[in-house]
């Protein structure tokens, strides 16, 4: 048996090159899905487990914001080499972890450290790339999180391949790849969506459209009606959601993951959000966007939106808000403690994992470095 549809029905016929399916069902919503501030919120509040879910999303938003703040502070203290903050995008970041089950796989890019931490990876291990002491400090197999990908969208085909392999094995695994608006211009994004469609792989692509690829706004990045419309060209489902509405992102991503898991095919979700901070601490966003624009988006801060609407709905009170803040401070405190200890570095580890077994050439070079280190140590001892 094959999981792929390679039977004769797909072979060439005189009509095989014409329209093969109706694109209409694949089209994304004309407006981003919103739940906060709509009657749908009331339905969630009234559903079984609804209030607990909403309070949990709020709590994780608060903790997520604090994670971003503390990591940014660590760059100012020289504890991190660089930090691309997801401040303003926390609703997307935390929703990812909520949508995936254990056994599912996450394929993050470099700005998605909060999603990685939300999935359960230790902050210290998550941030080694940005601290500069190790490329990937966590075991990808422990929490099913691929290494943070720096070359944009290059991890998207990996998600497709992993999801395809899982499907071949009969597992119900779903893979979720995170890409930004800029990343959708990359060839690998296109190839990943195309392969996903052809293989019918159980994969979800989450595009966090935060408005800018460093300095370049979306208008210079793409002429697509929305980024979610890109799905249609690959025969896969497009979805459009308000990325600052944590409940909406949670809901739409959950539906997308379920769609993929059911075998109905891949989904491309565009979450419309905004990068409140600069690209990284090394960037000056004032060179390419106005303070007024940022101020407008601060009014749509996912955290304040959530708190306001949940308070109005009567599911969130001072006690929950204070508890969330306390948990956030606990995380920040733990991060300070962890990162104020200098990392242990082993220069000889540079040679350990290039290959399964070091080549003769690497053995020679390792011996050279070992001799240099020994000489340094001897000089140090003499002093």
């Amino acid at each position, binding site marked *: 048996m094959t999981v792929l549809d390679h039977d004769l029905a797909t072979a060439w016929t005189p009509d095989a090159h014409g329209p093969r399916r109706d694109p209409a069902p694949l089209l994304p919503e004309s407006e981003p899905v919103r739940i906060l501030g709509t009657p749908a919120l009331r339905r969630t509040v009234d559903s079984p487990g609804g209030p607990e879910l909403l309070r949990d999303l709020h709590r994780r938003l608060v903790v997520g914001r604090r994670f971003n703040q503390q990591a940014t502070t660590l760059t100012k203290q020289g504890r991190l080499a660089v930090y691309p903050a997801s401040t303003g995008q926390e609703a997307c970041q935390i929703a990812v972890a909520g949508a995936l089950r254990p056994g599912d796989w996450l394929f993050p890019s470099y700005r998605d450290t909060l999603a990685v931490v939300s999935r359960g990876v230790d902050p210290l291990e998550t941030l080694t790339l940005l601290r500069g002491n190790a490329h990937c400090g966590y075991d990808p197999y422990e929490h099913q999180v691929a*290494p943070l990908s720096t070359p944009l969208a290059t991890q998207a085909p990996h998600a*497709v391949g*992993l999801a395809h392999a899982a499907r071949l094995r009969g597992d119900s695994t779903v893979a979720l790849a995170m890409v930004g608006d800029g990343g959708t211009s990359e060839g690998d994004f296109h190839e990943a969506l195309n392969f996903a469609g052809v293989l019918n792989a159980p994969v979800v692509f989450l595009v966090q459209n935060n408005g800018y690829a460093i300095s370049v706004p979306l208008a210079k990045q793409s002429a697509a009606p929305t980024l979610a419309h890109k799905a249609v060209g690959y025969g896969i489902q497009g979805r459009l959601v308000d990325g600052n509405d944590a409940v909406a992102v949670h809901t739409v991503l959950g539906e997308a993951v379920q769609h993929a898991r059911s075998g109905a095919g891949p989904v491309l979700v565009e979450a419309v959000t905004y990068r409140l901070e600069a690209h990284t601490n090394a960037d000056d966003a004032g060179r390419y966007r106005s303070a007024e624009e940022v101020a407008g988006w601060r009014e749509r801060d996912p955290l304040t939106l959530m708190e306001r609407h949940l308070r109005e709905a009567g599911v969130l009170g001072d006690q929950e808000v204070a508890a969330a803040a306390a948990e956030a401070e606990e995380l920040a405190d733990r991060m300070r403690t962890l990162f104020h200890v200098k990392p242990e570095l082993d220069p000889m580890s540079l040679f350990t994992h290039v290959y399964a077994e070091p080549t003769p050439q690497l053995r020679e070079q390792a011996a050279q470095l070992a001799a240099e280190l020994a000489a340094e140590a001897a000089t140090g001892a003499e002093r």
Partner: protein
Amino acid sequence: MTSAAPPRAAAPQSAAPRTATLASALNSALRDAMRDDPSVHVLGEDVGTLGGVFRITDGLAAEFGADRCLDTPLAEAGILGTAVGMAMYGLRPVVEMQFDAFAYPAFEQLVSHVARMRNRTAGRMPLPITIRIPYGGGIGGVEHHSDSSEAYYAHTPGLHVVTPATVADGYGLLRSAIASDDPVVFLEPKRLYWSKDDWSAEAPTPIEPIGRAVVRRQGSSATLLTYGPSLPVCLEAAEAARAEGWDLSVVDLRSLAPFDDETVAAAVRATGRAVVVHESAGFAGVGAEIAARVTERCFHHLAAPVLRVTGFDIPYPPPMLEEHHLPGVDRILDAVSKLQWEQ
């Protein structure tokens, strides 16, 4: 992550030797690897129903099904990127790139992920992927069908770069490449696909370990260092050199990375003279690395500088002009004649 089952031991050589082509030996290696290890999956353009444009995957889809010998969309980065994800999930993908110059779109996946993932993850996420690439000229191919791209790959830490030149090595090295827990760029000299040798799929030759060069011809005057498509040319040159009074050694490197310094240095010290021969452009090519390594290790044994006979530093020529570009017997003998022989 699991290691592949160890490759099958060679059958006893009792069966009568028959001739086989390099192409058929490569096909046998793929088939035997897929039979021995269900995690081995082949994917690429036209590898399924067609059996590949060079027929290296002929019959695999019929025997193992469309899932294990997968016809992919026409997108090399997507093919290799998909293979990365498959390997992350415990499969052992064998990727076919249709031609050398069509592999370039996959370069970023290769350099930024395939070569680095083991290192990036401190050994936790090895990627046992074999990337098969038909390479080199001499088949009358139009532009983009005759590149020798080995230097790009050999320059990339984390990759093994292997190239067979004989039918037996086609089988033995490909089995090793597929069984390797490291990614292997497996460069197949396409003009040797149809070369024949005594070899039988029923009694395959032993698995050849990666990283070992072999002396194909033992001589005393000078040593030719070569690999892949240039090996038969060098052996022919060595025969022709006898008329000039030179008895040449010929070393088949087989593995460009890792490099077998030991065998190469011993073969050069034995003669005191060396010429490196390859098709690809000379400047910053593999031959430059080899010449440097030989000089560093054999300086006091050398009677002459190490010379290189390579393709010119030009884009690969149109097929009607390629004979002027490719290293031939005369050009090799010219180089040998310049090795400062005493009159």
